[in-house]
């Protein structure tokens, strides 16, 4: 090693010694400083410790006496400390239990709790944190937590929190919210329009229906707080009588008394019913509620019902039928105007009395008693009744009675409809007496015809007797011409007698007292042909077997006799042929008598049936024969007509009822 290098090393060592000496010096000074600082700190620390202990014990007192659950946990969630309330809330057995609070959190809340924990660490506190937990005793609870971090010398070391059980409160709240929302939905959708105003006429609440009724183009929500002072003025044009609408509202608001059922008619035809209900709280007016209901349908229904009722009422009171309603005791409950008119009694006199005691005449009271009993068995019927009205006049009524039932089907009385048939009845009686009179006068006429015929025939007989005496007494004195004239007189007298006989017969048809019986026409006509004088050159034949007819024997005999005689009389041929025939026509038989006589011109066909219309004035024709025939046919509900050709022959047709 060279000196230089040693020298350099020597000097470097020297500098180093000096530096260390300096450093030792500084260190010594610092050390002294530190010591004193330490002493000082020790002293402060002591003070602080005392202070802390004091505060701590103070806190301990608060901590133990706090009502709410108070828990201190470390930053991992392990319980460090808790009070009795917390023990009770979380379901522990003692305050000393070692447990991680996180384990109580409901699994579904784990994430939220994580977030909340993070926030707690970052911000140092959380408030109003609500979480579902399951307690050690397995109860599900909702708790409310306010928590903060505890720092030691600026470093977080633990967390403390106050835990409140809000399970019940939460439930209540939810219930309240639920019912509130239900209520508001209800109000919102109410069929009635609702408007709640406060004491300053600001809208508190309204609903859709109200907006609809008042044609407000806004939502109920938007109307909240709206001042209604001018609302009536704005809405009045919707109503039929705008001024009334406004006046009435002002009046109601002035009185502030409940008003129910005001009716408002709107221009669009809607009818609203309005209630006003003031809201008084502790004697203090707090506002009022308007309620509007649409009663259009109900009102129009009621109106049409009323109109209908009125209509029927009118019909009932004005109809010509007397209506009476009685109870089960037969006491009159109701009568209509016609009934009043028909009886002559006033409504007052009638209602409450028993109709059967007052109205029917004595003889008919038993009928009514009988009917009242029958009606109670539910029978409906009509019968005639004679009643005496207030004026004492007897009237004929047609009574129709029916039991009256209530809604349950019990008989509660009866309803009688009465029709005054006095006039009809008197007509009927009149008719009866007229018929009797007619019958009497018919009989009289018949008698009269006999008397007249007797009185007319008597002189004829006398003339005949006198003539024959004249002839007898003067036999020798009379010449042939005179005798001839005597014969003429006799013939004339005879014809006159026949005429009288025929007239009598004609007038007698129909006044026969005998009943119709079954007549065998075949026998009758055959017998007749044996009795009748039939000239040799005439042949009368029955072509078909004649039927049995219900009729008068002598008349039917006369009918055939007249027709056959007539046919014989007018035969102008060398050989006369008369044919009698019959045909079945359901309800009637059609007969025909056909001859080959002189025939009858058509223009006389109607005439020949008329009395005294003999076409040929001959010795033995009175002109009544065919009239008698026609009358007999009609007596047997038949018709008669003829077909004829002059010079060839005539057929008389007639029908007789079976």
């Amino acid at each position: 090693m060279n000196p230089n290098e040693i020298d350099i090393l020597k000097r470097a060592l020297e500098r180093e010694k000096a530096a260390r000496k300096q450093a030792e010096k500084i260190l010594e000074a610092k050390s002294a400083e530190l010591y004193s600082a330490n002493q000082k700190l020790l002293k402060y620390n002591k003070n602080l410790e005392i202070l802390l202990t004091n505060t701590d014990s103070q806190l301990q007192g608060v901590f133990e006496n706090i009502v709410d659950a108070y828990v201190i946990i470390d930053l991992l969630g392990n319980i460090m400390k808790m009070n009795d309330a917390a023990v009770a809330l979380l379901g522990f057995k003692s305050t000393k239990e070692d447990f991680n609070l996180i384990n109580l959190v409901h699994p579904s809340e784990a994430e939220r709790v994580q977030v909340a924990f993070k926030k707690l660490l970052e911000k140092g506190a959380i408030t109003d944190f609500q979480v579902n937990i399951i307690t050690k005793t397995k109860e599900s609870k909702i708790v409310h937590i306010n928590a903060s971090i505890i720092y030691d010398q600026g470093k977080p070391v633990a967390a403390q929190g106050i835990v409140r059980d809000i399970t019940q409160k939460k439930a209540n709240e939810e219930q309240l919210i639920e019912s509130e929302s239900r209520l508001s939905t209800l109000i919102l959708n109410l069929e009635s329009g609702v408007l709640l105003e406060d004491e300053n006429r600001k809208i508190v609440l309204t609903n859709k229906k109200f907006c609809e009724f008042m044609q407000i183009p806004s939502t109920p929500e938007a109307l909240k707080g709206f001042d209604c002072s001018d609302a009536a003025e704005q809405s009045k044009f919707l109503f039929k009588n705008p001024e009334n609408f406004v006046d009435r509202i002002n009046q109601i608001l002035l009185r502030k008394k409940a008003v129910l059922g005001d009716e408002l008619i709107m221009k669009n035809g809607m009818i609203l019913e309005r209630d006003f209900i003031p809201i008084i709280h502790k004697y203090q007016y707090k506002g009022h509620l308007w309620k509007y209901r649409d009663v259009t349908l109900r009102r129009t229904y009621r109106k049409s019902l009323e109109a209908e009722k009125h209509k029927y009422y009118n019909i009932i009171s004005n109809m010509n039928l007397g209506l009476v309603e009685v109870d089960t005791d037969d006491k009159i409950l109701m009568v209509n105007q016609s009934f009043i008119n028909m009886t002559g009694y006033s409504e007052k006199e009638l209602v409450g009395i028993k109709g059967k005691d007052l109205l029917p005449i004595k003889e008919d009271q038993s009928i009514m008693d009988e009917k009242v009993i029958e009606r109670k068995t539910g029978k409906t019927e009509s019968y005639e009744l004679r009643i005496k009205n207030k004026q004492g006049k007897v009237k004929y009524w047609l009574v129709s009675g029916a039991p009256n039932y209530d809604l349950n089907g019990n008989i509660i009385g009866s309803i009688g409809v009465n029709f005054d048939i006095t006039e009809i009845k008197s007509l009927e009686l009149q008719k009866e007496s007229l018929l009797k009179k007619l019958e009497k006068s018919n009989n009289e006429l018949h008698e009269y015809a006999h008397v007249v015929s007797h009185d007319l025939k008597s002189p004829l007989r006398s003339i005949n007797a006198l003539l024959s005496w004249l002839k007898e007494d003067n036999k020798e004195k009379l010449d042939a011409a005179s005798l001839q004239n005597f014969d003429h007189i006799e013939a004339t007298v005879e014809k006159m007698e026949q005429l009288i006989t025929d007239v009598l017969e004609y007038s007698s048809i129909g006044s026969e007292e005998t009943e119709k019986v079954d007549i065998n026409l075949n026998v009758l006509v055959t017998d007749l042909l044996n009795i009748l004088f039939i000239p040799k050159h005439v042949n009368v034949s029955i072509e078909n077997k004649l039927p049995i007819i219900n009729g008068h024997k002598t008349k039917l005999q006369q009918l055939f006799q007249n027709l056959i005689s007539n046919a014989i009389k007018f035969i102008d041929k060398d050989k006369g042929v008369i044919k009698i025939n019959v045909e079945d026509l359901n309800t009637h038989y059609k007969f025909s008598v056909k001859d080959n006589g002189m025939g009858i011109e058509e223009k006389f066909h109607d005439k020949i049936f008329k009395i005294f219309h003999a076409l040929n004035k001959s010795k033995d024709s009175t002109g009544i024969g065919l009239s008698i025939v026609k009358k007999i046919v009609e007596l047997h509900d038949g018709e008669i007509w003829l077909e004829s050709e002059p010079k060839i022959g005539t057929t008389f047709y007639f029908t007789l009822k079976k």
Partner: protein
Amino acid sequence: MKTLKILLIEDDMIEVMKMNRTISSLKLNHKIIEANNGEEALNILRKKDELPDVILLDLNMPKINGIEFLKILKEDDVLKYIPTIILTTSSNQKDLLECYEIGVAGYVLKPLKYEDYVSKIEKLLAYWSINELKKI
């Protein structure tokens, strides 16, 4: 042949003449007592001293008519036994029935012709002359 005492009750003069002429022309001995109406006939009958054997009665008469007369007759205990024959123009069935009901001995219709009349009366009287009658 028995001679009959006949009470003819007839208001028509010519009818009476017819009866008388008939009897005389037939040369019968019957005695005719004439009464113009029922009243007169009753007066004759009430005397009871000269009661007829038969009565010929016309129905159509004034005052008391034939049927009324007949009723009175049949209510009398003595007179009711005298046969009464109706001699009338009335062919009224009602009259005929009523007469038979009250009680008549015959109902004869007066014919138009005198010859017929004579023939009827002849038979009628012949019949009654052979009948047994109540002795008075």
